[in-house]
């Protein structure tokens, strides 16, 4: 039986009505948060000190502004640039498979605009045994396979970006775009030993160091569409606590009314305790961020703090606005990188069948477990 549409359809109108009630209640909370932002803007030093005193060292993630937190910046002009988008997709080792192996597909789009660089759309795939992910550590064996695959995928995305961006930046101004967070959050997992994580951490540091060495010609940003982060909101809550009954706000709720299409917010620095832990693992690679309005979307853009010079930020900002105009509100380079990287449901099934067949040819046959056998046959 598939999803009972008749049942869920009957419940949807009530859900939508409840959503509307929540939205209406959020309006007041958003206004309160914006007032707090103005207060912060009036005296940034004193307000930041209050926020830091209240939240410093606590588990609540928050953000502090570099300058005026309520500042808005219009879209700068865009010159010739090469835009590199990187995205990845993966197949996690399947415990039901005869041979447990992972697959990672890293797609990229290298798109020159007025720069003499050859455009490129491509993907690089790699496979390995489950054990390859756990190499060198018994502790990592406790980690979920999905986490290990995801971590390797994140690191490979960054490395692929470096391989493309470094030569591109030698030919002219370039912007490297990643999808999602800038740093691999899973580096901070408690589900794996330090020994197991060390190779991934070292590879991340090496990749970031190579990007930093490119200097001003290369801008870098990790793009999170419709971000649900609430680090700025947490800071504003210190200045003007929202009523306990108020629905939880996101940073996007606050900046939506503040930013006009194409504008970005001030640069903030995340003080998330979790992120702090990741940053402590990656010394010298602190994360800066800003919010960008693209249509109705408030995107969060993370960048290395060392890549937050005015030239690099202006190029990143202008490029993102231009890229989003080219692709209905999402950076074209990331869209095309995604298209190159995506592993469809049929690809996954084909991969699994190919693996089973080749393993069978090699005389490896694992007994099918009941669940797998039943799901495959689906007999009546």
């Amino acid at each position: 039986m598939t999803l009972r549409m008749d049942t869920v359809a009957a419940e949807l109108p009530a859900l939508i009505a409840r959503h509307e009630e929540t939205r209406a209640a959020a309006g007041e909370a958003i206004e309160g948060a914006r007032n707090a932002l103005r207060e912060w803007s009036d005296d940034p030093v004193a307000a930041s000190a209050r926020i830091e005193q209240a939240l410093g060292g606590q588990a609540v993630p928050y953000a502090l502004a570099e300058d005026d937190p309520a500042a808005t910046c219009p879209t700068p002009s865009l010159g010739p640039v090469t835009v590199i988008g990187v995205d990845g997709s993966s197949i996690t080792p399947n415990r039901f498979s005869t041979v447990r192996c992972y697959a990672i597909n890293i797609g990229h789009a290298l798109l020159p605009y007025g720069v003499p660089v050859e455009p490129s759309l491509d993907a690089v795939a790699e496979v390995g045994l489950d054990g390859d992910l756990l190499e060198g550590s018994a502790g990592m064996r406790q980690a979920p396979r999905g986490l290990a695959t995801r971590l390797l995928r994140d690191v490979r995305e960054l490395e692929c970006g470096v391989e493309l961006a470094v030569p591109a930046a030698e030919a002219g101004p370039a912007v490297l775009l990643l999808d999602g967070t800038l740093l691999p959050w899973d580096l901070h997992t408690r589900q794996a030993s330090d020994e197991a994580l060390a190779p991934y951490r070292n590879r991340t540091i090496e990749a970031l160091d190579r990007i930093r060495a490119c200097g001003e010609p290369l801008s870098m940003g990790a793009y999170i569409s419709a971000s649900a982060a609430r680090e700025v909101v947490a800071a504003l809550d210190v200045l003007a606590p929202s009523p306990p009954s108020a629905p939880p706000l996101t940073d996007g709720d606050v900046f939506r009314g503040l930013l006009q299409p194409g504008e970005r917010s001030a640069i903030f620095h995340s003080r998330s305790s979790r992120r702090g832990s990741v940053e402590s693992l990656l010394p010298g690679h602190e994360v800066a961020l800003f919010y960008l309005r693209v249509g109705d979307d408030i995107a969060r853009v993370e960048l290395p703090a060392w890549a937050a010079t005015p030239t690099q930020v202006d190029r990143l900002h202008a490029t993102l606005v231009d890229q989003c105009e080219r692709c209905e509100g999402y950076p074209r380079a990331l869209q095309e990188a995604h298209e190159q990287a995506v592993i469809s449901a049929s690809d996954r099934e084909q991969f699994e069948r190919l693996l089973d067949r080749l393993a069978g040819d090699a005389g490896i046959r694992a007994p099918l477990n009941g669940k797998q056998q039943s799901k495959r046959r689906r007999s009546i």
Partner: protein
Amino acid sequence: MRAFECAYSRYTSEPFALGQMLVVREGRCDTFGVVTGSESGPDDPSRPLVPRGDPGQSAAAVMADNPEIEMLLRTTLTVAICGHIDREVARPALPPMPPPLLAEVQAATDEEKVRIADEGRFLVPLLANPAADDAVVAAAIREVARAAGPGERPFLVAAGKELARLLKAEPSRLTSILRAVEP
């Protein structure tokens, strides 16, 4: 055996023309054919091609401004086979084997065009192919005539005679092709 389809990536920079003679230089023999049609569109059918660019902007400018587009489009050419060269012998007839899959397709040289056309005999396999309509046949004749250089006139006369012989039962088609051949 009578026709093949091939993907072509240089649609914008070096487009093949209708009736142009192409060659596959791999396999048991070199296989020659005439372009009977081309179809261009997104490589991924689930991604529709949407209008791009500003009003008045040329297609070339739109392509240059959107460097990913050319890589996402695919042109498929349909080619009617009209001859082959086997061990240096040119034969205006179907080859014994189809050209290999994934083999590269190139434009035929002027010398090859004239050899394969063989004073109009390449029209036999061409007219037998339903994909080679009057416009294609006429374009192919014009193409070979241009390649013949000083032999243009003699070739056109020979091709006209061959057409008349092959289409004696179809006078209206003969007239239609001859009119289309005229400059």
